[in-house]
């Protein structure tokens, strides 16, 4: 096998290279947004993204990528291209105040999951679901149900059918994470040992 290391292969200029070729696209996999429930009675919160070839693998990767350290109770994922993102407001402005009645109504009703961002730098969190004839309609339904005292800076809508969640019956996969403190650098208390060593030497 030829080396894939660019440091090894970079001098391999072919003979008769002639014409210049357009740069090709990267063969990146699609990205999936990952949401976790970290504690009992807390909502799904966005934790990051994973690359994966499909939904099932995205969920499998997400479990170790985002669940290997912090305690987790459930996870779900959605293809990034299925996440509908609203504009951002300035701080303290509520996005729902700028919402206009939906003009284009679709024929059929879809169910969307609604995620709110309450603070810049924080993560979106799940607030509930809203049905609507298209996303504009669903946003207006969401306003009726979820517009509360806190300003909402940004909203994500994801059709329910586009979310894949871990099964309740597989809940055991999260069981031993709290016992894996050895994965944390802080669990290896080298400083104490060095201190003791120095005291013994002194």
């Amino acid at each position: 096998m030829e080396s894939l290391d660019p440091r090894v292969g970079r001098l391999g200029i072919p003979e008769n290279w002639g014409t210049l070729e357009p740069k090709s696209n990267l063969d990146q996999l699609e990205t999936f947004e990952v949401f976790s429930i970290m504690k009992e009675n807390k909502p799904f919160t966005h934790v990051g993204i994973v690359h994966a070839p499909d939904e099932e693998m995205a969920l499998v990767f997400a479990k170790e990528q985002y669940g290997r350290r912090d305690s987790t109770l459930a996870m779900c994922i959605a293809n990034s291209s299925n996440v509908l993102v609203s504009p951002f407001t300035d701080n303290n402005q509520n996005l729902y105040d700028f919402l206009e009645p939906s003009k284009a109504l679709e024929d059929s009703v879809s169910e969307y999951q609604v995620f709110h961002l309450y603070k810049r730098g924080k993560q979106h969190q799940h607030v509930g679901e809203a049905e609507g004839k298209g996303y504009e309609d669903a946003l207006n339904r969401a306003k009726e149900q979820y517009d509360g005292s806190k300003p909402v800076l940004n909203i994500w809508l994801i059709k329910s059918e586009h979310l894949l969640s871990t099964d309740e019956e597989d809940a055991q996969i999260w069981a031993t994470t709290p016992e894996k403190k050895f994965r944390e650098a802080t669990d290896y208390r080298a400083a104490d040992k060095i201190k003791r060593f120095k005291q013994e030497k002194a």
Partner: protein
Amino acid sequence: MKNEAIKELLYKMADDQLVLGHRNSEWNGLGPILEEDIAFSSMAQDKIGQSLEFYSILNEMGEKDPDTIAFTRKADKFKCCQYVEHPIGEYDFSLVRHFFFDYADYHRFELLKNSKVERIAMAAKKFQSESKYHIMHANAWMKQLGNSDVSIERMQNCLNEGIALALGIFEPSPMENVLIEEGVFEGEKKLSERWLSSIQSILSKTELSMPDISTAPINGGRQGKHTPHLQPLLDEMSEVFSIDPEAEW
């Protein structure tokens, strides 16, 4: 007699986990994508943790401490099956081994959850929760690569070539009857039946076919007979430990 039989069971399980955990960790930093690298390394780490628990139980039964057991024995004292000691090969080989071995693991823990030895039953219950994720991971990959034109042939070759080694996981132990009679473990035969039905069920969701299970198993590992691959692995694994076996880490 009963204690010797239990020790034999613990040694083979622990040695399997330690050796395969070490092998799979060789992919660390080389996985096909970052997400897979993390997942595969995490599972390797789970296996090392499981071996530590089984060596600790052995220690409580009068054997030496876990580090000494893990790092100072020569290859012929190891009771792992030969499958786990083979080099990682290309990713197809490692994934198929992961699929075959971790299903055996999952069902072994399922059976051991009912063990009359409470210490073992508790460990099995805990490890099955880790193993559950391992088989979810294996399933996803088998479906991914077992349904794609570019990979079916390679995966099928690994299944065909791996089956004799995989059947060696279930090499019966001389004292197995004692374990069965005493309600410690229901035995390799029962385990292999459950394993087979899972393997068939997953492969039926792919374009892959069942490898020939009438193939003669490659046995010997459980009696300390190993391939030339094991000793170099053990030498490398214990390299740092051997510099100063008395050192406190």
